[in-house]
């Protein structure tokens, strides 16, 4: 299984990857993307099983990436990992086709709960 982690912060990508390991997903391949446009390209080239994406990023935001993926016919499972966890943002995320939204700061337990239905 392969997980694509998209965040414009290298530090946050490291924290997300570390938390994935803590949540028990340490045997998955991890691919990193530094913004939404990079993530969109790597969805095609790397064919991940799950995309974990920040919302606010330069070049292309996370939700723009998700909308572009769905418009191109990609049904890859997609979840947000973002500092904005308001009900309004959760509704926007769900409407665009995201499976979940993990709000920063997060714990390994939150990752387990969100990812288990997708990755098992």
């Amino acid at each position, binding site marked *: 299984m392969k997980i694509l982690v998209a965040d414009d*912060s290298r530090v946050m990508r490291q924290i997300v990857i570390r938390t994935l390991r803590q949540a028990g997903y340490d045997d998955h391949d991890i691919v990193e993307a530094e913004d939404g446009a990079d993530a969109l390209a790597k969805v095609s080239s790397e064919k991940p099983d799950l995309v974990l994406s920040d919302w606010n990023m330069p070049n292309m935001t996370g939700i723009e990436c998700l909308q572009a993926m769905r418009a191109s016919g990609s049904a890859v499972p997609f979840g947000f990992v973002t500092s904005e966890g308001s009900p309004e943002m959760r509704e926007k995320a769900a409407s665009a086709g995201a499976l979940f939204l993990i709000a920063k*700061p997060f*714990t390994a337990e939150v990752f387990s709960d969100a990812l288990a239905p997708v990755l098992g």
Partner: protein
Amino acid sequence: MTDSVIDPVDTGERRRRADAAPVITDLIDEATIQSIAEEAWQALVGEEEFLVPLPGDAPDDAVSSWVEIVGPWNGAVVLTVARSTAEELARCLLKEHAPPVLDDEDVEDAMGELANVVGGNVKAVLPGPSVLGLPEIGAAPAAGSPADTCRVDLLWRGQTLTITARGAAGAPHDPSELDPHENEVPL
């Protein structure tokens, strides 16, 4: 004959107050900001990391990171620490991935993410809809009115950490709420 319903002393003040943009102190308090910061620190910096609500010495070489919020309330959430504290925070966030010598990009990235997480959670408490900006680093944005500033002075590992939610300079406010005194410590 009925009494007149026209208030002879209606100056429009009540309507102007209702129309005035909200100030941050009406929307969030210091305890909430501290609670948001403590949660961010324990999740990102380390489980055993605590913030003590005490003012420290103002750093000579302050580094600020912030995110702007645009919506019913306009302003920024700003984190300010000494340069050495910023480097220590970056090492904590990077953990085993921290290089022997940190470069500026790592420190700015770490400080920006801390501002992003604290600011994003402050935004969630404020009335919406609002838009959160991307993290910025450097000299903090100009302070707005003291009445539109919520400041929290904390110590992390004995080092000064100041978090302010500050209205954008020039944002419209009810002039009667302005504090004539300036902030003594520029951040």
